[in-house]
């Protein structure tokens, strides 16, 4: 992939990053990345999960500091030691998880930390007025009142508040990190309109996404990151296939394990009939032995809620669950685990790991939870610490010492330990939520193969992922969710566009 020289320069770049490198223990997150963006330009920044997009943005916004390399803003070299400095310099980043204070009003949030003061008092009138002005960018019918409390707003409106904040800060560069992840089609159109207006004001927009359709629709230029390096750079928007090739850089077929043969897929192990709770509606579902069932959908579609309902975290309140012919009702994860279900959570740090405990302890925790409490902690037989460490060896968990605290392991190794935790219990159903989030590319294939092997061993695998190529590449069957329902079911080999159309509910988007 060679960089295409700029064809139609629109003046000097407002932002340039030269040869920026950043390492974390065990990972080189960015390797001499150069990047630039012009006034009034939308530059798409694309790449797979773990390609280094968010590290690059965090360096730009002063959350991280680069190990090497320079950043030029308006041709002047800058160093940001703290997010406040980059904000003051005119760089606003809108993260996927908003940094708004949920209990404060729109005006309070827009003026967070820089409230105008008049005669010793907050100048609320001015805050209100200027908030209105910033919001006017969105036209007349945005429906956001400066006095509304953030938690009462919808996701799209919260995003508008973030953008209004950037406008109010007179940002020269606005970075948007997958802004459409939680939006429906109409809201996306509103957002695109807003971005056009930001462009017209001369703001440079860095737009992170992995949806080619949005790149096509919005971008003026594209930078592709892969494994911490710039894989390609275009000062125009090329064919989508060119971008995808640069992103993936290898044939998908080699990366993902082969599908299950028809003879490998067995009976339904877990069946749900008419399942529902306050987030899920009339769920009918079969998870079959030997099969990987992938769940696709946009954020908030109910995929995670479904996994959590099956596992007894927020159980179904309606309908029936049948496990191997017997009706079951799980009121807690413990019930579910006892019956043979397991769940690998999406937020590994918050829900998966015991950061201060050893690697072995993390692997043993579930076995111990179901063993006799007063038995020795070394366990015995199939559930012994020794067997667990052998298992780590087979799974190629890399650690200096299994007595080391797990927080010092890399994401991929941590994930393997969380999976190993379950293997000792010989589960029948394994639910994986975002199994490769924060896992580097090489370790991903290992996790896919592991899932396939488990399926071959007769387990039913449910995979929930926001990484659509991954869902399509690994699953034998793809289920699409939208607004708490399962809306479509596809065989392996279905196209990305079809699934996206089902997920967003707009068939015209399939084009």
């Amino acid at each position, binding site marked *: 992939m060679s960089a295409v020289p700029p064809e139609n320069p629109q003046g000097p770049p407002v932002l340039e990053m030269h040869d920026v490198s950043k390492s974390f223990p065990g990972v080189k997150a960015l390797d001499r990345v150069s990047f630039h963006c012009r006034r009034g330009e939308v530059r798409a920044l694309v790449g797979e999960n773990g390609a280094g997009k968010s590290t690059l943005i965090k360096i730009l916004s002063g959350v991280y500091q680069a190990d090497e390399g320079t950043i030029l803003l308006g041709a002047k070299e800058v160093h940001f030691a703290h997010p406040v400095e980059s904000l003051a310099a005119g760089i606003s980043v809108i993260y996927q998880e908003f940094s708004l204070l949920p209990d404060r009003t729109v005006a309070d949030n827009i003026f967070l930390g820089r409230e105008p003061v008049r005669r010793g008092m907050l100048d609320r009138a001015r805050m209100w007025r200027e908030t209105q002005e910033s919001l006017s960018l969105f036209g007349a019918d945005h429906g956001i009142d400066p006095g509304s409390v953030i938690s009462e707003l919808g996701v799209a409106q919260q995003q508008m508040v973030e953008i209004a904040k950037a406008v109010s800060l007179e940002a020269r560069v606005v970075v948007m990190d997958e802004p459409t992840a939680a939006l429906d089609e109409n809201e996306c159109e509103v957002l695109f309109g807003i971005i056009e207006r930001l462009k017209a004001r001369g703001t440079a927009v860095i737009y992170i996404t992995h949806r080619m359709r949005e790149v096509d629709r919005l971008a003026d230029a594209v930078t592709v990151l892969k494994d911490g390096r710039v894989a390609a750079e275009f000062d125009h928007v090329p064919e989508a296939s060119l971008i995808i090739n640069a992103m993936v850089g290898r044939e998908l077929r080699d990366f993902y394990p082969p599908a299950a043969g028809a003879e490998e897929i067995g009976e339904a192990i877990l069946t749900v009939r008419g399942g529902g709770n306050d987030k899920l509606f009339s769920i009918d579902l079969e998870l079959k032995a030997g099969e990987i069932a992938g769940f696709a959908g946009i954020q908030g579609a109910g995929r995670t809620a479904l996994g959590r309902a099956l596992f007894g975290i927020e159980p179904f309140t309606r309908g029936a669950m049948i496990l191997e012919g017997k009706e079951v009702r799980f009121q807690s*994860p413990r019930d579910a685990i006892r019956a043979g279900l397991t769940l690998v*959570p999406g937020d590994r740090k918050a829900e998966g790991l*015991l950061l*201060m405990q050893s690697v072995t302890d993390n692997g043993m*925790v579930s076995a*111990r939870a179901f063993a006799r*409490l*007063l038995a020795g*902690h070394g*366990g015995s037989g199939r559930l012994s610490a020794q067997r667990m460490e052998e298992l780590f060896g087979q799974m190629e968990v890399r650690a200096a010492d299994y007595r080391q605290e797990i927080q010092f392991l890399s994401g991929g190794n941590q994930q393997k330990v969380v999976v190993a935790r379950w293997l000792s219990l010989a589960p029948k159903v394994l639910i994986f939520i975002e199994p490769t989030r924060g896992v580097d590319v090489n370790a991903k294939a290992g996790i896919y193969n592991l899932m396939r092997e488990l399926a071959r061993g007769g387990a039913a695998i449910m995979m929930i992922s926001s990484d659509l190529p991954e869902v399509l590449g690994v699953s034998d069957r793809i289920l699409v969710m939208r607004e708490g329902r399962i809306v479509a079911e596809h065989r392996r080999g279905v196209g990305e566009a079809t699934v996206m159309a089902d997920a967003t509910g707009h068939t015209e988007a399939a084009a």
Partner: protein
Amino acid sequence: MSSETQDLNAVRARRRLPRINPIWFVLAALIVAIIVYNPNFVQPVGYMNFLKRAAPLAILAAGQIYVIVSGGFDLSVGSTITLTVIGSSMLLNNNPDATWWVILLMYAMGLAIGLTNGLVVSILKVPSLIATLGMMITLSGLALMWSGGAPRGYLPESFRYFGRANITDLPLINILPISLIVLAVVVCLLWWLMHRTNYGRLVHAVGDNPRAAVLAGVPLMRVRVSAFVISSLTAVTAGILLGGFAGVSTDVGRGFELQAITAAVLGGAQLLGGRGSVSATIAGALTLTAIFTLLNFVGLPQPVREVVQGLILISAVAYAMYRRRHAVH
């Protein structure tokens, strides 16, 4: 010796050193200081008396560490001690024959207190500090109610035996206080439970990350409640020993809750859970007692103990935070 082997030895030494908790060195230094002030300390009577005095706090701290490692605090132990002493004296009413069932009843009471603490924290989700502070007020109110504000009666010898009596005329050590035997039994039991059983690992898991523990199938409520129960039962034990040598009053247990937490913190326990050791906590309790002993020798008035304890508590936590900030990853 070649420089290479020296380096290797240095590396080995560095690797080995952190295994010994620094609190043991602090304790050793303090004991040397005590011996300097009072050479009689090396006699069995000297150190046995020291250990006898330290026993209630050490037992209490060994129970407190369970609650701390599981991610909470138990501030109700001081008033549990008071209630144990007051309750025993009221129930015994100078009748030595009642000793055994009174002791049994006190343990039942401790069980009830621990269960209540644990259930309030687990089901009502009240922060443990508030829940156990509330329990502390409630229990000391009960102690006052029971005794009518002015405790009367005294504890019969049969009851005071555990806290006060010594086995004498032993070879080598000459005397052995009964309270020391109680201490040894309790500590061995609690050390084994924390560091050698599945249960102990689950206590660590729950304190480290309760959400992850629940998703891994750990019975969160049972582990948490049992930690509070263990703490309350050690408080009853400490109360029985204190009743033996301190006598009956409504403030016999006052301040013990913070001493127990200080001992645990000195032993390197992680506040809010996940890390802690029974043996290091015992060392912390002995250290605290040694400091108090020294302050006595130096002739500082009693209240200064509180000031020193407050300073130790804050600086021990501050030091732990400093270590964590500067830890090499």
